[in-house]
């Protein structure tokens, strides 16, 4: 912040700074690959950071869904992110983003095959990522059936965005119960 001469046009800065604390994020982005990212952005350079670099950031490194997160926010759907994508991602993940926005993106994250529905296969993958494959196949199958039972309102065997939002809206905002996992 301040020790590098970053060059952006006034309009660019003006546009970005509504949503994200720009300078900070830009320097994080640049630090991932200083040789790829130029300091001068006035000509909209087409720079994409590969997924491996994004996935190694400390915020995402331990997250079981990091690959999906990168894929959802990247333009090409492969996880390679431009600066815009990067800023998008952090603006949604930040505490300040409204809940509905987060719900929308969460739906996309859990939708592994990108068909705008969360089907059983997506659920199985989600569960395995969440428990690092510790549950047996039977248990996984049982949980997925239960989730479908609970959440599928229109009974089509898969969860649409409305079903998903319906469930999430009722989730306890603050997990204050005694025996909550950490």
């Amino acid at each position, binding site marked *: *912040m301040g020790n590098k001469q970053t060059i952006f046009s*006034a*309009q660019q*800065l*003006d*546009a*970005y*700074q*509504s*949503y994200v*604390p720009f300078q900070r*994020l830009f320097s994080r982005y640049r630090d991932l690959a200083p040789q790829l990212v130029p300091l001068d952005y006035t000509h909209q350079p087409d720079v994409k950071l590969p997924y491996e670099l994004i996935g190694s950031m*400390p*915020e995402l490194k*331990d*997250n*079981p*869904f990091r690959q999906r997160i990168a894929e959802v926010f990247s*333009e090409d759907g492969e996880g390679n992110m431009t600066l*815009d*994508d990067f800023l998008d991602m952090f603006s949604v*993940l*930040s*505490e*300040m*983003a*409204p*809940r*509905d*926005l987060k*719900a*929308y*993106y*969460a739906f996309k994250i859990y939708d592994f095959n990108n068909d705008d529905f969360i089907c059983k296969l997506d659920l199985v993958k*989600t*569960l395995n990522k*969440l*428990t*690092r494959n*510790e*549950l047996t196949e039977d*248990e996984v199958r049982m949980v997925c059936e239960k989730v479908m039972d*609970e*959440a599928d309102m229109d009974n089509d065997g898969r969860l649409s965005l409305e079903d*998903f*939002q319906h*469930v*999430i*809206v009722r*989730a*306890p*905002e*603050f*997990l*204050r*119960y*005694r*025996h909550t*996992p*950490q």
Partner: protein
Amino acid sequence: MNRTPVKEQGRGKERRRSTAKKLKPGTATGNVFGSTNSSQPQFHPCLLLDMCHYFKQPLCPCLSSEQESSEDGDKEGEGEDEEVEEEEEEVEKEVRPETLTPEELEKLKEAVDDKKKLIQALRGKPWPMKKKHSTLRESQEFLEKYEGALGKGKGRKLYAYKVMMNKKWMKFKRDFENFTTACIPWEMKIKEIESHFGSSVASYFIFLRWMYGINMILFDNIGTVPRAEETNAMDFAVLWDFGGYAQYSVLFYGYYNSQRAIGWLKFRMPLSYFLVGVGTVAYSYMVVIRKMARNANETGGGDENSFNFSWKTFTSWDYLIGNPETADNKFASITTSFKEAILEEQESRKDDNIHLTRFLRVLANFLVLCCLAGSGYLIYFVVRRSQKFALEGFENHTWWERNEVNMVMSLLGMFCPMLFDVISALENYHPRVALQWQLGRIFALFLGNLYTFIIALMDEINLKRKEEDVVQFNMTMWEASLHNNTADNSTAPPLFTHPADVPRGPCWETMVGQEFVRLIISDTMTTYITLLIGDFLRAVLVRFLNYCWCWDLEAGFPSYSEFDVSGNVLGLIFNQGMIWMGAFYAPCLPALNVLRLHVSMYLQCWAVMCCNVPQERVFKASGSNNFYMAMLLVILFLSTLPAIYTIVTIPPSFDCGPFSGKARMFDVIQETLESDFPAWISKVFSYAANPGLVLPFMLLMVLAIYYLQSTSKSYKEANVELKKKLQMVN
């Protein structure tokens, strides 16, 4: 759908303020949908970004123009959450209000409002950045052109200030909550255990911590009885037997003398001792019952099971975790939580052969009864034998024979629960229900033990009292002889006898206190040794012998031990019962217990993490807490019974303790009433104690209880109905 109004979500200045902090350990963490307040540390600043540099930047360039648009630009700046760095050099068409008709003015106002709303809502729209940029740019241009024409309101600065203060207050509240959570002792340890072993094991440690708190308070209570003199030197070697000086020290009942008033405070020693005893018991009852009521409330209210699995799947990952160890713990706890939920689900789906199950259960109960009868007889036999030994004099017997009763009780306590465990495999209950049965049976076992111990004690008390009579008789003889000697010199100064020369009578109360302390200490030792041998040694053997053994020690027999929740909980409860029983006669007991609990906490936390494996079937402990409390209450009641019996029936020793010389201990209250209070109070009390008044009062209480119970039942039913309605609506 509840859309949180975007204007509260970080507009301009407020967002700058609220995010200008670095998170410290113990602060908010969050799932992807919002923050949660857990005490889990690990976070770093990136996701909550430091924006205070924004404050230094100039606001929207419209401000620099000198019209009313300066204020509008202010609001615009807030609505758009931004500062623009450079001045835009746009030629603004100056639209004056006078040039517009009222209708056009209205329309313009609406359009401006729409644009403003759009800008505010832009944050929440799931559009990619580019689209957001272009929309923003258009709206901004529109606003710049036309809003100047309308001259919007004042007070926006005030509003912004208010919102900023609000954010500050939320931040303060959050920090304070995090601080108080961090202050709870052992919270981190317990959370770690919970994530690896599940909530039932963690509930034991939470219970242990709660007991520790109670004992601290009891200890403080008893400490308020003032000590007028320093304690005598305690010879540690003799301490084991609690003979010698310790006998006369502050730790025991016998120390407190029966002087009515001490020092300038005219502190009523006997009365205070008595009242402290009563107060301790009353406090304990109150605390246990209050906790039960609170537990009942909690479980009654928070029973949201409608989306259990969905929430676990979609919202359990904590998106703010940035540390691999924390992530490991989190994975473990998520897996455990899933397993618990799966177990609940499976149990609720089971249906099997009713008749076979019933037969097996009856058989199991029969076997258990046989065990209990057997152990009862064994204890009775052993106690009889030790009474015989006592009559013959203890010196003639070996160490085993002397301590036979204690040893047998401890051994039974170790092996019978294991036997019960094996028998309960026949019954095929849900693990939580099986735990409760197990607890109930072990409870019956320990009850037998305890009452045998008390009967043995009563015998000893009687012995001591006989001794006392003898000593008293001797003393009168001795005094008489003294007076005879000095009868000649009537003018001689009064005879001083050194206090140590005066023969002291045996003090049965102190003896009782000693017995209790001995029992508790031997119990503690047994527990720790069992822990070390049973868990630690076993784990070490399995681990290292595995390299050179024919079968896989870890998978087969004996493998690592599981944490025995029921046994440990019961041990804790019975320990507390003994403390309550003995606290009247040995005021040091709560202090001893505080020490013991402190050590136990650390030792057991370490042992659990190091030598135990999680149970095969992990279940949720939610219902069990009130069960533990109920048992505690029963034990409290049962342990105050003997103390009350002795207070009421047995006369105190004649020369030791605060009540010496009286016919009964509670006479002290009578005396106080008669001598220190005005006459009318004792009249009131005598009326109040009249059976004619007491019986109707008790009847009234019974009626009140019945009424309250029926109202609560009807409320519960209404509750269930309403919940059903809610679900149907949704």
